[in-house]
C-alpha cells in the first residue's frame, strides 16, 4: 500500500504521460536511442494500473496514452495480429518524441543554469533617463485649421435646419371641450357651424374644424350626451343637448 501511495504522489509530479515515460526511460540508465520500448511500455502500464487502483479518476490524456501503449505492446508482442512495420513505426515515433522531450529538458536546464538577469546578475538599479521630451511646441498645420473651420461652420449650419411652421389646426380634443361647454347654452337644435370657434381661416383650417367638431359630436352622441340630426343629404348637421331621462 505504501508503494502504491508513493506511486500516486509521484504521478502528480509529472506534467503528463510523456513526462512519466521519459522518467521511466531514464531509469533504465541506457541511451534513449537504444532503450527497449516494450520494457518501457510495460513499466508505464504498470504504473498507471497501480495508480488507478488508488485513484480511479486519472486524467484522460494519461488513459489515452495508456490505451495507445497497450495497442503498441500487443503489436510488438504478437506481430501476427497486424503488420509489424506499423508497430515499429509507432515505436520509432514514441522514441523520437521522448528524444525531443529529453532535448527540451536539457535546453530548459541549460537556460535555468545560466546567470539570469535579476536573479544572479543585476543591471543598474537606477538607470539615468537622458531623454528629454520637449512638449513646448504645438503641432499645427493649415489643413487641420481649415478642417476645423469647416467642421465648426457645418455644425452651426446643421443647427439651423429648416423647420416648417407647425399648423395650428382645431383638434378633436379641443372640439370635445368646446362642444361640452357650449351645448347647454343653446336652447334647441343648433347647426354644427354654430359651434365652430371664431376667426377661422377658410380652406384647410375651417374644414379641419368642421370635421373635428363632427367627430366630437359623434363621440358625445355615442356617450349619450347629445343628439345629432341631419334632415337632408348634405343638409346642415344639427345638434342639441340630450335631456336628462329622455330616451331615444
Amino acid at each position: 500500500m505504501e508503494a502504491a501511495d508513493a506511486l500516486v504522489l509521484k504521478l502528480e509530479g509529472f506534467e503528463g504521460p510523456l513526462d512519466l515515460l521519459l522518467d521511466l526511460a531514464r531509469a533504465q540508465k541506457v541511451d534513449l536511442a537504444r532503450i527497449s520500448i516494450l520494457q518501457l511500455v510495460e513499466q508505464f502500464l504498470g504504473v498507471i494500473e497501480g495508480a488507478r487502483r488508488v485513484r480511479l479518476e486519472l486524467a484522460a490524456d494519461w488513459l489515452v496514452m495508456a490505451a495507445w501503449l497497450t495497442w503498441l505492446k500487443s503489436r510488438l508482442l504478437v506481430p501476427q495480429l497486424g503488420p509489424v512495420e506499423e508497430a515499429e513505426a509507432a515505436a520509432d515515433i514514441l522514441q523520437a518524441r521522448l528524444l525531443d522531450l529529453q532535448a527540451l529538458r536539457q535546453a530548459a536546464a541549460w537556460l535555468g543554469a545560466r546567470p539570469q538577469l535579476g536573479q544572479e546578475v543585476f543591471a543598474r538599479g537606477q538607470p539615468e533617463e537622458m531623454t528629454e521630451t520637449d512638449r513646448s511646441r504645438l503641432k499645427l498645420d493649415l489643413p487641420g485649421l481649415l478642417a476645423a473651420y469647416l467642421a465648426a461652420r457645418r455644425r452651426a449650419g446643421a443647427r439651423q435646419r429648416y423647420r416648417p411652421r407647425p399648423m395650428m389646426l382645431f383638434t378633436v380634443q379641443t372640439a370635445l371641450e368646446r362642444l361640452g361647454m357650449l351645448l347647454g347654452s343653446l336652447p334647441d337644435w343648433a347647426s354644427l357651424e354654430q359651434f365652430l370657434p371664431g376667426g377661422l381661416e377658410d380652406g384647410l383650417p375651417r374644414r379641419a374644424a368642421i370635421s373635428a367638431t363632427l367627430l366630437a359630436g359623434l363621440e358625445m352622441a355615442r356617450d349619450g350626451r347629445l343628439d345629432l340630426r341631419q334632415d337632408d343629404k348634405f343638409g346642415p348637421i344639427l345638434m342639441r343637448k340630450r335631456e336628462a331621462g329622455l330616451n331615444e
Partner: protein
Amino acid sequence: MSEDFTPAMRLAEAVVFAAAQPVTARMLANLLPEDAEAEAVMAALARAYAGRGVNLVQAGGGWQFRTAPDLAPSLRKVVELPRRLPRAALEGLAIIAYHQPVTRAEIEEIRGAALAQTTLDLLLENGLITPQGRKETPGRPTLWGTTPAFLAHFGLNHLKELPRREDLLLDPAGPGAGEGGAP
C-alpha cells in the same frame, strides 16, 4: 586594473550599482565583511571612479553612481513631441482667423457651440490670438484677432494667404448660412 580592487570594494561596487535607492552607510556596514571599514572602502571606490565617465557620489542620503556631469550634453537626447490643439481650440482659432476682429459671442454663434474660457486661455497662452480692442455694443465685449505667431505657426506671411472662405464653403453666405454647410 582589477588587482587594486579588494573583495569588499567589489561587493560595495556591485551593491551600489544594482540598488534602486542610494545605499546608506548602515546598509553597507551590514553587507561588508566585519573587518572592512565601510568608509575606507567607499573612499577607495570613489577614488577609483574619479575622473571616469561614471562617478561615485554621496547624494540622497547614501552612495550612488552618477554619470559625470561634464558628459551630460553628449548623453542628452531631446525628443520633440509637439502637442496637438484640442478640437474646440482649433475651431475657435480658425473662426478668429477668418472673422477677426470677432467677439466671443460671435465665435460661439458661428461655431454653433459654446467656447470655453479654458479654450480661449489656451489660445492666448500659446500666443496665437490677442485682444484687438472692444466692440462698441452694449457690454463692450473684447474683439479677438490672430497674432504674427499664428502666421508663423502655419507658415503664412499674411492672413491673405489663407484660402478664401468662398473657396472653402459651398454656400458663401455669412454666419447662419443654413443648409449651405450642412452635410
